[in-house]
């Protein structure tokens, strides 16, 4: 099996979220970056498990500047065989999807993995865009993926439940929680990652269809109103009369 995993870089979950230049640019000052958890914990690990079961290779692809190679080396340390970096500043989901599709077009991957969303822009777009560009089936928010011979049985999260789908031939999935268990890279992995192939590619031209023009951090709650634990009638009254939510 030939598998491609798209990986993205995001701020750490505890990063301070602030903006500069009058709210037009994310302030990266003091922010640590990680591999997007959905890509690392679920997409990449399930891809590696499939390779372990069925043979083949796992390639990771990342759109970003040279500094982002830290996350690429991490993906290689966890077990990917080789990597591709499209040398660019990613500006939108569209700018990323165009590059991934351009790379994957002639490579006959059996499965292309993305995370269900990145934890910064939360757009949930790249997987579907790549699938549409390559005219492949796309199953999003996948929490289980197993093979019975050539047929993949894929379970996706739906509102209040799940749906099981069979798909044959190449397809794109976006990974959600449950698909795999996080793997911590070991020393051997970290050492071998240093010598695994990393190909750097120049991006193809692209014109984005949407962009972000402003960001703001919502106002913090004013102070909390404490209610006496022995007076739950008062809490109910407040929720009804003041907050008007029950």
């Amino acid at each position, binding site marked *: 099996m030939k598998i491609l995993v798209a990986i993205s870089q995001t*701020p750490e*979950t505890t990063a301070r*979220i602030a*903006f500069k230049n009058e709210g037009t640019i994310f302030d990266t000052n003091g922010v640590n970056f990680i591999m997007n958890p*959905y890509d690392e914990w679920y997409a990449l690990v399930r891809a590696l498990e499939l390779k372990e079961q069925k043979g083949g290779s796992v390639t990771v692809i990342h759109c970003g500047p040279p500094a982002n190679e830290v996350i690429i080396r991490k993906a290689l340390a966890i077990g990917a065989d080789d990597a591709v970096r499209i040398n660019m500043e990613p500006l939108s*989901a*569209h700018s990323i*999807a165009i590059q991934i599709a351009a790379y994957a077009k002639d490579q006959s991957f059996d499965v292309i993995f993305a995370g269900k969303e990145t*934890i*910064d822009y939360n*757009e*949930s*777009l790249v*997987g*579907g*865009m790549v*699938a*549409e560009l390559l005219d*492949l*089936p*796309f*199953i*999003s928010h996948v929490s289980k993926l197993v093979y019975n011979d050539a047929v993949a049985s894929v379970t996706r999260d*739906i*509102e209040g*439940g799940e*749906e*099981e789908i*069979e*798909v*044959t*031939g190449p*397809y794109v999935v976006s990974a959600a*929680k449950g698909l795999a268990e996080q793997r911590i890279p070991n020393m051997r992995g970290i050492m071998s990652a240093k010598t695994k192939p990393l190909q750097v590619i120049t991006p193809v031209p692209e014109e*984005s*269809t*949407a*962009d*972000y*023009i*402003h*960001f*703001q*951090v*919502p106002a913090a*709650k004013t102070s*909390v*109103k*404490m209610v006496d*634990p*022995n007076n*739950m*009638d008062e809490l*109910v009254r*407040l*929720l*009804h009369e003041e*907050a008007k*939510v*029950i």
Partner: protein
Amino acid sequence: MVLVVAETLEGKIKNSSFETVYYGSKVAEILGTSCHALILGPCSDGGRLGSFGAKEVWQVEDQALSSFDSQVYTKVITQIAKEQGAKVVIVADSSNGKSILGRLSIALNAGPVRGANKLPELKDGKLNFQRPVFSGKAIATCRVNSEIAVISLMGNSLKPQSTGAEVAVKAINVEIPASKTKVIKVERSVGIVPLPEAQIVVSAGRGMKDPSNWGIVEDLAAVLGATTACSRPVADSGWRPHHEHVGQTGIAIRPNLYIAIGISGAIQHLAGVNSSKVIVVINKDPEAPFFKAADYGVCGDLFEIVPKFTEAVKKFKSTHH
């Protein structure tokens, strides 16, 4: 023209579709055009969408569309959007909506906005939408630069109002491509409002100590007509099902009322819930970070407080309506 894809469930219009259509009609007003609703697959009550602002309701009634395939749906919607000259295509920010949003943006060469939560502004001929980013820690303004926009609308963004009469549903024929996927099984917990659509959510964390203690949480949820949720460690340790996990790496929700029981309020948890309109926190630790994000707090032992809260709600419900 604004085209709204209305979702159905078991042959009936989903409640959330009234909001999507109403939103579409408001976007149409901003653009000085009309809003049309599109139903894919069998549905018996599509005309109701007329009352929420759809000038016409179109339906492709083919059985092949009764199960969802993002590729097939995208081809059908794209065909209709192109034929009708849609300038904005709106879907719900649901599991299906999210599966087709990216695809539609490519197929229509349209600027995508995932999870808009307000009506757009029209500036210099371009639509500007607001959406939460960084798991609700910030709000972004997204400008669509292309001729066409595709939007997924976050639930609970505006209250749908019935504005007119039902309309007749018009059947339309389009070519439906063969699906390369096959839905084998659908499992849905019945009778429970799914988390993203719930108006009231009762959520509990590690402070519950043991899964066998969840009865008091379920009782409170039952009297409030609420959906239950949980923190990540609770789902990870198998105390509750994964689909209840809310937060940065779980489901992001924005109900009218979020009640957090025995949850500390870690930044990753808050990220997925702090857009809730009103937050009530029940925790025994006065220093729990969640109190800083709460509107109402009760400090004390949840095992005593929650049953009392349930009784108080019951008493209230019996005297009101």
